[in-house]
């Protein structure tokens, strides 16, 4: 693997974890009695940015390396389901996340004080942020399973 691909794969993983951590923090913040608007806006923006960058770096690795060099190894091995089921699901669920993250970010910016006043609104946004966190966590675990199936 070239140094550029190692950089993209590592960035994809670290940025994904950072994005998940941001949405963990956003969810926790929204469930507090006193929501911290500054931290909410900062973390939802950080999470969105990290997801987009993770999308781009992971996408580069997936499009230009995974298909030709990793997929055949997994498919020929004992754990072909790691590609046929896990990778197929992972690469496609990943497409949802930036859109969901954008909505949480934009709602944090546009709603501001309304979020402080209205508990229902906070809870609905928290549910969406929680979904991003849980899907992100699942994707991370799927990544571990896929990596485990690669043995030359």
């Amino acid at each position, binding site marked *: 693997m070239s140094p550029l691909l190692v950089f993209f794969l590592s960035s994809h993983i670290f940025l994904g974890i950072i994005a998940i951590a941001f949405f963990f923090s956003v969810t926790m913040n929204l469930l507090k009695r006193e929501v911290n608007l500054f931290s909410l806006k900062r973390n939802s923006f950080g999470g969105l940015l990290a997801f987009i960058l993770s*999308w781009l770096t992971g*996408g580069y690795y*997936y*499009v230009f390396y995974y*298909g030709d060099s990793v997929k055949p190894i997994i498919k020929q091995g004992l754990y072909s*389901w790691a590609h*046929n*089921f896990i990778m*197929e*699901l992972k*690469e*496609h*669920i990943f*497409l*949802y996340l930036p*859109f*969901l993250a*954008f*909505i949480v970010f*934009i*709602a944090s910016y*546009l*709603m501001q004080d*309304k979020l402080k*006043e*209205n508990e*229902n*609104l906070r*809870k*609905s*946004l928290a*549910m*969406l942020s929680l*979904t991003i966190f849980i*899907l992100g966590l699942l994707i991370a675990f799927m990544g571990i399973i896929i990596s485990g199936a690669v043995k030359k």
Partner: protein
Amino acid sequence: MTKLQALIFGAIITIIFLTLIIITADLYSPLKDFLKNTFYHHWIGKGILGIIVFLISSLIFNLIPSSQDIDNQKISNKLLSLFFTTILSFLVLTLFYFYEAFIKK
């Protein structure tokens, strides 16, 4: 419709669109080939089309005339609709790929 409502509706349409195009491209190879030929890779194609659908549907919903006052309850309901759409789409994709990988001969 307020900007936020239009964007949430746009996201709902995009999640449904992505789920449909992902499944259709897997079942109908000419669509997958079209995505590959047009966007270099089917995954890039799905991503770009997702962004286009999101922008266009949000713009269309934004043009629907209604009160510009932010109604907390309406926004809250739409956020929950997006939440349920995502969960349902995720389950559909999981079942689809489970079928494709383990059941289909």
